């Protein structure tokens, strides 16, 4: 493998990895921006996405169906949870959210264990994407190219949604000054429900897309939630662009860092986080704390 091929394939690896991280990070950051709560259950929604994806593939026999159904169902579940539980807690202290969302993680983990069992489950990439392409004579999986493309498409879509649509406008306004938006006659509670649902739905897409790479398993939630926090902290809590930047930075550092310093693989992500926090305590694009 010559150096050019190495460089190109590693960059593509990093981009596909960044896409998965972005699906997680952007949801968490949107939720934080609007609700000022840290959703501890984000990893569990990601895991639920993978399991719902598994069942959708099993029932509909089609990965694309899973890609549509999973975010809808996971997002729907998120909205139901917001309406049924979180809504009762907005007047309370922030620690109530931490406790409740952490509790939800445990409950979802056990529920998934009861419904789908303890064994990891195979989710196959669709046949059209399970091939390889040769990039500078090196085989590269089509599915990873698809992931990178999906990340870019969704990022642009969310950006346009926030900038161009009325709901996007309301979301941005609510994140800046919820009371003012409320005073102007918009039901902020609905905006919150919508954002929580969208955030969870994005985690659900991430879960389906990650499943062919890691299988659907109970181990998905705990590691995902930590990665997500790191990305959001690096990018800046509540910043949409920040979460995209954080995902890219972490993915590139991870992919190249692991290659040159395999012994540091576990620490790399946190080293980046510490460096960013020393230079910009609010994250790359966050408001200064």
């Amino acid at each position: 493998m010559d150096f050019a091929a190495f460089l190109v394939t590693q960059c593509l690896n990093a981009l596909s990895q960044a896409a998965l991280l972005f699906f997680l990070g952007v949801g968490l950051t949107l939720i934080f921006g609007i609700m000022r709560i840290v959703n501890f259950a984000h990893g569990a929604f990601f895991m639920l996405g993978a399991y719902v994806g598994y069942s959708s593939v099993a029932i509909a026999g089609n990965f694309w169906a899973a890609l549509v159904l999973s975010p809808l169902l996971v997002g729907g579940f998120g909205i139901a949870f917001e309406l049924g539980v979180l809504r009762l807690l907005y007047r309370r202290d922030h620690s109530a959210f931490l406790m409740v969302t952490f509790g939800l993680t445990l409950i979802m983990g056990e529920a998934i264990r009861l419904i789908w069992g303890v064994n990891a489950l195979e989710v196959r990439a669709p046949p059209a994407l399970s091939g390889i392409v040769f990039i500078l004579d090196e085989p590269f999986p089509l599915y990873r190219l698809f992931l990178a493309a999906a990340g870019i498409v969704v990022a642009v879509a969310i950006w346009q949604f926030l900038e161009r649509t009325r709901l996007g406008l309301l979301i941005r306004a609510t994140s800046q000054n919820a009371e003012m938006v409320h005073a102007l006659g918009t039901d902020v509670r609905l905006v919150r429900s919508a954002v929580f649902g969208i955030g969870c739905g994005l985690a659900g897409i991430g879960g389906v897309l990650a499943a062919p790479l890691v299988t659907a398993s109970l181990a998905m939630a705990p590691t995902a939630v930590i990665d997500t926090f790191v990305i959001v902290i690096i990018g800046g809590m509540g910043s949409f662009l920040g979460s995209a930047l954080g995902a890219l930075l972490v993915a590139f550092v991870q992919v190249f860092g692991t290659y040159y310093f395999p012994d540091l693989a576990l620490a790399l992500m946190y080293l980046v986080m510490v460096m960013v926090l020393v230079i910009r305590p609010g994250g790359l694009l966050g408001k200064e704390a």
Partner: protein
Amino acid sequence: MATSVTRRAAMRASLVAVAAPAVLRHARGEAPIKIGMPLALTGPAAEIGEQMRHGAEFWAKTVNAKGGLLGRPIELHVEDTTGDPATCVRKAQLVVERDGCHLLFGMVLSSEALAVVPKLAEWNAIFVSSDNGDGRLTGSSFVPNFFRANISGPMETRVISLWLRRGEMKNFYAIGMDYAWGHNSIDVFKDEVAKAKKNFVGAVFSPIGTKDFSTYITKIRQAGADACFIVMQGADNNAFLSQAREYRLADKVQLVTSIVDLNSIHAVGDAALGLAGSTRYVFTIDNLANKAFVEAWRKEYGTEPDVFEGEQWQACQILQAGIEKAQSTDTDKLRAALETAAVDSIKGKAAIRACDHQAVQGGYMVKVVKKEGFKTPIPEIIAAYPGDEITPACRQMTFES
């Protein structure tokens, strides 16, 4: 295929196994043979704990349906240890003192078994291991009340080493999970490669919980080895195999793994194809006892028995042979009987040796292939080694040559 595990389900299941069929009614009044089974039923080792429970329950049910052992019904007392050694000792003590079990199965992790064995004398209890791999249990940490019915870790590695001596592969690379097990196994492997007069070209370790293996796969490809030895389990193993398939790694490099089990094959499907490895038990072993066992198992569970289900079944056979020989469950009599217990079981001959209580038994090398009549790939035996070739000298963990 989804089976749920909750503490309550575990308790209930242990009672199901006890429910005596009609044949047993005459035996009412006979004291049951109580066996304590502290198992990791939640936590990362739950998959294995679940298999061991199945294996033991199936045996208890089979024996009870025939009127029990020495006319006494088998009674299993299952407890969840979560895979934590301290909890495991507590739960083992509980089944001994509260339930009056002086026979123990279970202890999924070697760390749990190592914590329990020093207590066996005090509890006057015998523990028959069905899956603990750590060589020390029949070596430096040996106690007289411990018996290992299963293949040990050093024996598993020996099987792979004997296999690769024969093969044409010359250069070896290795990838392992970055903790004690990964490092130890790769050290042993490196040593075996050297003894086989072949080249070990390098190794890389991935942190536990790694999800993206693309960089590691790049490193393996660049190493230019003929084969890569994999020491991974659980979610990491599944992720690695799925991604190795994405990059068509197996086209270039023979993947050799320390563990081949049905659970991970089911989890990754075709990504497991071509994988070679040693296995402790596989349902494709060709002998009459195994055929009958697999048939009965299919009838009961609608699927093939997995590695630890088979291993547990063999451990049960060995305990049964000991109890029948001793005509008693008294600890001293049973210990003496078990020291020479031998069975012709699902893996062929397995005989406990008195010097370190290890069951000497054959080892199998398998390759994962597609077979007519099976939805997912299955392990096919490609080499078998007799017990005396793969069992280390008494109380030893390594091999002379």
